[in-house]
């Protein structure tokens, strides 16, 4: 049974330029991936929709380890891997003012068709740990 994602934003989600550029800027401007990411960011930053947050896996079956991370599937509000093929991953952090936020760390495909393409979870793992999972 699909878990019911929590609809209330618990803490603010934040996007910084470096992560955004590396994760989203690598896609062509009119690609479905980039369009989905930019639209979702606007929706998150304006709080226009309930955000169906899910917790990431501390020890995923794919070898990834994403402790203290949460994710959103895109397009927001869509369900199922085919309708929502992309994901955002955020890490729970304290900023310089000791305020808790969810910091954006990775964007990509959840289940890439191309076997050479890294999943959003593998990209998040590499950003956290400095290397891809074994």
């Amino acid at each position, binding site marked *: 049974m699909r878990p019911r994602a929590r609809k209330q934003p618990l803490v603010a989600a934040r996007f910084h330029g470096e992560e955004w550029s590396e994760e989203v800027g690598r896609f062509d401007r009119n690609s479905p991936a980039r369009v989905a990411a930019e639209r979702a960011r606007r929706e998150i930053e304006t709080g226009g929709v309930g955000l169906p947050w899910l917790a990431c896996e501390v020890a995923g079956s794919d070898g990834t380890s*994403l402790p203290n991370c949460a994710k959103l599937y895109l397009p927001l509000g869509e369900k199922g891997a085919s309708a929502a093929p992309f994901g955002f991953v955020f890490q729970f*952090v*304290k900023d310089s003012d000791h305020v808790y936020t969810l910091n954006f760390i990775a964007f990509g495909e959840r289940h890439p068709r191309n076997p050479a393409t890294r999943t959003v979870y593998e990209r998040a793992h590499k950003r956290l740990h400095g290397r891809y999972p074994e």
Partner: protein
Amino acid sequence: MATAVKKLDLHVGELVEIEGRRYEVVPARDGDGLTIEPPITPISELYAKRGMSPASAEDFKGILGGLPTDGEG
């Protein structure tokens, strides 16, 4: 005329620059050799510049511990 092959002695984690753009040497996803891709800056480097730090597991559990999981990643 055959194209000359430029042999490079590269290892995982090294950065190369091609026409002004940097790439990182990483293992190919299928495990067969190496490939290059735009680098993913470690989050620790970015946080250090911004005065940010990862929250503790206790804080995550206390504030976001009720989030469901779906086993995907």
